[in-house]
């Protein structure tokens, strides 16, 4: 008896391990990215980022909407934290296990387009209407649409109203200029605080370069031109806010990607450039009154990049018709309304935008000052969207971002010139 048991255990363990080793290959009844059951209903996997139970619940509501509208389609939702999401997607792709429904950020689209199915043949024209034009445009790459938009974001200047009042500096208004920004940053510096915080994150610093002199890091055909003379000039100025004017705080290390925003929310800097996606959280977290203004105007007016996220399908998806139906619901009016009401996103559908504004106003209390902030914030978003251009990176944008964090820091601390830093980044990202 005992002997048998031992044998059984060892054989069982062996079998389990062999089975484990076989993991990763999909079994015969399944198509890539989903499965079909005997009654003809299809389950599609949907990969999305989410943090916390609330966000997961919001997404589950969207998945339920799909099933309600198309009873033969079920959505199997998989989430990962945002910071791991794209690594996970990559790894899944390497193992040939992409989900059918892929969530994608406009910035990263060039790097992932290879994995994704162009939607133009699958989604009828009507499916792409009702969105802010910038939102659909941002999710196109080389003339093809790869995802339908969920949200839309622009960059704005957040500022500390209390600090401005204390220093007696007039608050930034629509139409303010780069020179006004520099002056404000200088006046707000002192007593251990800085007027502004530098960032090496792409949208945060490149938006300032764009408005300063129209510098663009990528050519029209998607090649890096980080050492372009305009880029050098713009980053000379941007780094100079810390090295020459001494009015900006410098990230403490290359791993401090969110330095400018955290320093602002902690009250250590009076202004920060950040995305409109943080409107709600900044107003909520800061222990001072938060104001929002458009990016200061350079020679060509106030410029900002717009970026967003959306949902598309993977090239390998075995159920593309069902996936197209699901996408239409996930980005449909009802789904957008639901996300906007819960304050998850600034919705890409114009019809859902009032719901988002209502959420922000309610969340931030009814005092007139907060309501005004929300209103100005929404206006700054709208202005940004009107004048904004979608940001399109290079195919190796993740790599460029890593190089930004390593080498721009040297320019910000003054140990290298902006030209040297950008030349190095260009060499490494083009090579």
């Amino acid at each position, binding site marked *: 008896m*005992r*002997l048998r048991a*031992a*044998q059984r*255990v*060892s054989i069982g*363990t*062996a079998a389990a*391990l*062999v089975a*484990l*080793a076989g993991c990763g290959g999909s079994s015969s009844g399944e198509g890539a990215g989903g499965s079909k059951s005997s009654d003809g209903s299809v389950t599609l996997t949907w990969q999305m980022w989410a943090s916390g139970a609330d966000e997961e619940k919001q997404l589950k509501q969207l998945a339920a909407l799909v099933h309600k509208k198309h009873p033969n389609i079920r959505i199997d939702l998989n989430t990962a934290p945002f910071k791991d999401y794209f*690594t996970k997607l*990559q*790894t899944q*792709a*390497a193992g040939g296990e992409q989900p059918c429904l892929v969530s994608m950020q406009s910035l990263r689209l060039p790097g992932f387009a*290879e*994995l994704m199915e162009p939607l133009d043949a699958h989604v009828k024209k009507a499916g792409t209407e009702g969105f802010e034009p910038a939102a659909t445009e941002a999710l196109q790459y080389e003339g093809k649409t790869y995802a339908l938009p969920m949200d839309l974001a622009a960059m704005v200047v957040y500022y500390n109203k209390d600090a401005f009042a204390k220093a007696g500096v007039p608050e930034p208004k629509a139409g303010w200029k780069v020179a006004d920004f520099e002056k404000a940053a200088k006046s707000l510096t002192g007593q*251990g605080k800085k007027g502004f915080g530098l960032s090496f994150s792409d949208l945060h610093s490149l938006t300032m370069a764009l408005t300063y002199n129209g510098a663009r890091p990528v050519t029209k055909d998607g090649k890096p031109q980080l050492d372009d003379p305009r880029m050098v000039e713009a980053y000379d100025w941007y780094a100079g806010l810390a090295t020459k004017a001494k009015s900006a*705080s*410098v*990230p*403490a*290390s*290359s*791993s*401090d990607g969110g330095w400018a925003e955290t320093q602002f929310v902690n009250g*250590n800097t009076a202004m920060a450039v950040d995305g409109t996606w943080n409107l709600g959280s900044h107003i909520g977290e800061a222990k001072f009154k938060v104001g929002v203004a458009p990016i200061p105007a350079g020679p060509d007016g106030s410029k900002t990049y717009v970026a967003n996220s959306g949902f598309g399908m993977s090239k390998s998806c075995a159920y593309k018709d069902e996936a197209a139906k699901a996408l239409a619901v996930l980005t449909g009016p009802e789904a957008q309304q639901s996300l906007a009401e819960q304050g998850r996103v600034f919705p890409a559908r114009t019809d859902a935008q009032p719901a988002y504004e209502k959420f922000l106003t309610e969340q931030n209390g009814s005092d007139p000052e907060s309501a005004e902030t929300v209103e100005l914030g929404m206006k700054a978003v709208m202005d940004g969207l009107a004048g904004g251009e979608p940001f399109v990176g290079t195919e*190796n944008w*993740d*790599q460029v971002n*890593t190089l930004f*964090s*390593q*080498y721009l*820091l*040297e320019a*910000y*601390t003054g*140990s*290298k010139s902006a030209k040297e830093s950008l030349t*190095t980044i260009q060499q*490494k990202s083009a090579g």
Partner: protein
Amino acid sequence: MAVSELTEPNRTAKSAPPVKQRTGGRGPRGRERWYAYGFLSPGLIGLTVFTLFPVGMAVVMSLHEWPIFGERSFLGIDNFRHLLAEDPTFLVSVRNTFVFTALFLPLNVVLSLALAFWIANCRARQVFRVLFFIPTITPMVVSAVIWKLLYQPDGVFDHYLGSWFGVDAPNFLADPDTAMFAVVAMSVWQGIGYNLIVFSAAIDALPTSVLEAAEIDGARGLVKFLRVQLPLMSPAVFFVTTMTMITSMQVFTQTYILTKGGPGDSTVTMVQNVYENGFISRDLGVAAAGAWLLFAVILLITAVQFVGQKRWVHYEH
């Protein structure tokens, strides 16, 4: 000691009869062999699936152009040639890794040895051992994040350098001249506890008779330490230097969290280079080749240490 002496005879007495009952049939040998297979198979299969197979795959991948997605093609040794001859980033990462090891290894060994001796004569030595061991059992990520807060401008170091000495602290992690030292300091703090415990155990195991004999012969202080205690502890010293060398060549977590390789490329290590080639540049072939080169370097240094140890490590008291 007393407890084990008491229980030892009991245990054998109790367990002896069942052993006899089970014998029979094909004899104990045959059964024991089956038991052996049973107990070995999880380990053996685990080793094959989780170690040998990935190692084999890494060899295959390093010889291919192997993007995360897209076409794979056979390259031969081009990935290695690329790393060694064409990619300046890799060579910088090798240099940084050696600089880190050259600073970290001696500092760690000397400090943990000194501390071990210092607290060996202290009445509260167990308390100190626990205290110094705490950083080792704290997750590295947590320690690194806390140290980052200490290092940053207006952090603790900056504050006290300013208020006590009136000195402006450098921006430790953003200055290429200080970033590596800052990483080493944090790593020594983190890594010292483990070696301290190993050395403490070795000190406790030093034969009193030999030490007494040495003292009667007039050995005191430094002479006693260098001529008597250290040679007696040489196996522990060898173990510590070898293991510490291996872990320091594989340094990644601290630098990734504290500096992410920056500023510039001043703290990019070999493992970070492998990681970035694999998951940022999405070139698994080059990443695998880099991992093999790291393995080769570690193997070489360890081999040298093993050959060298014959001259200075004494295993008999």
